[in-house]
């Protein structure tokens, strides 16, 4: 199993969700996040004083999937989140040893 984490622009969240549903991914976790990559932040102006705001709003999407579909899921997320402009985000995958469904106690791929 793989944990796939994606940091994307908030307004692409609906497209990513739709793409994952079409792939048959049953659940996901979304967290509001902030950060920056190469685009750095933005500038705000208050009474003429400029403030450099380094951290820009992002969403963090996490899904755990079986190894066999991990690449498809990554491709789907990248495709849905892509705008071609700076700040589109990152997607990465890490191995997962165990998953337990709290309600039933099922373990492994059955718990997904």
């Amino acid at each position, binding site marked *: 199993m793989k944990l796939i984490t994606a940091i994307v622009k908030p307004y692409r969240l609906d497209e990513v969700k739709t793409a994952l549903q079409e792939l048959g991914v049953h659940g996901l976790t979304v967290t509001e996040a902030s950060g920056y990559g190469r685009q750095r932040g933005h500038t*705000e*102006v*208050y*009474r*003429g*004083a*400029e*403030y*450099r*705001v380094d951290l820009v709003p992002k969403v963090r999407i996490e899904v755990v999937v079986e190894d066999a579909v991990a690449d498809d899921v990554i491709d789907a997320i990248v495709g849905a989140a892509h705008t071609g402009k700076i700040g589109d985000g990152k997607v990465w995958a890490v191995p997962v040893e165990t998953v337990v469904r709290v309600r039933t106690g099922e373990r492994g791929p059955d718990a997904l």
Partner: protein
Amino acid sequence: MTLAAPHVDTGDTAWLLAATALVLLMTPGLALFYGGMVRTKSVLNMLMMSFVSIALVTVVWLAAGYSLAFGDDSFGGLIGGLGHAGMSGLGPDSVHGSVPTLLFATFQLTFAVVTAALISGAVADRTRFAAWLVFVPVWTLLVYVPVTHWVWGPGGWIMERLGALDFAGGLPVEITSGASGLALCLVLGPRLGFKRDAMRPHNLPMVMLGAGLLWFGWFGFNAGSALGANGLAAAAFLNTLAAGCTGLLGWLFVEQRRDGHPTTLGAASGAVAGLVAITPSCGTVSVLGALAVGLAAGVVCSYAVSWKFRLNYDDSLDVVGVHLVGGVIGTLLIGLFAEKAMTGGPQGLFYGGGLAPFGKQLLAVVVVAGYAFAVTYGLGKLIDRVLGFRASEEQEHTGLDLTVHAETAYDHGVLGHGAPVSASVLSSGQKVSNQA
């Protein structure tokens, strides 16, 4: 021949009752205006500094402030007497002009309240609440009351002897609060992280709401200062609207040219700057004069607020840049724009009055600003030495809401109901009564 006994005019009284309520609303409006501009962790403290000023100034005004400001002159136009201390000798039948004296005293009280509250903007985020509780009543007696006597009191030297003009409070309200704000922020020093951290307003809609309430209340402030329901009140009312509008537009114009964006904080600030400047002049200039006064204030004040970064004093919410500078502009421009048709008095330079009226306005500005700055600096230093004026570093870091008031303004999290997270009921009236 006998003079007709003074009598109360019901129309004038009705208007002044309404105007008094409008001016009192300015202080809660100011609380929102200031509260929105500070960070989340100290918004309640900011609101409290205004609200508690209502209570403190009311008590000290009724005890002695009114009498010293508007009682019979007792010392060469510098201060009134204590004949009406505790409002003694004043009952429902006492008359001031065409309104009850008790109403006039209450109207003036609301001015004193908002003036003291204005100063809090200069020392936001870092003031010991206990020190503020001492500062406000003492400052009111030492600075606001004497200056008010100089300007409007019977025999006051600025209006009656010097002949300078101030219709609704450029000198006692705007210039004293601005100069005192500068003095106090020098006593306290800058906020932790000044010029390093972004101290952005946490709620601009709240700022806009506060500015709107201020503007609404300002009609009572300026048009009420006619002390009657009459043409002068109408002129002051219209001038107040006109100057607020050109102040707003002037500030936005500067922002668009300088920064590339017209901002909401700029619109609110520009309107307030225009209103500040028209306060002294609303009863002495025509509508064209009011439009010019507001525009001048909007443009100049939008540049003035950046002084604090260059000169290194942390006037947190720009009391100096808006109220001192705006008040000076409005008071000085009387010397240029005053019209005899309005005042029945001196003509400004632009209407053939020469430079003398401007000179009188300038002298009044310099003396009042200098007096307010010097006395406030001394008072601030004294309170700092005896009590400590500045909050501790830990309080300032954590925020004054939690550390001083044991409250937080917002519950943003999903885990608990505001900080501290996962609190349980430690004590309550219910528990106490169960044990009893």
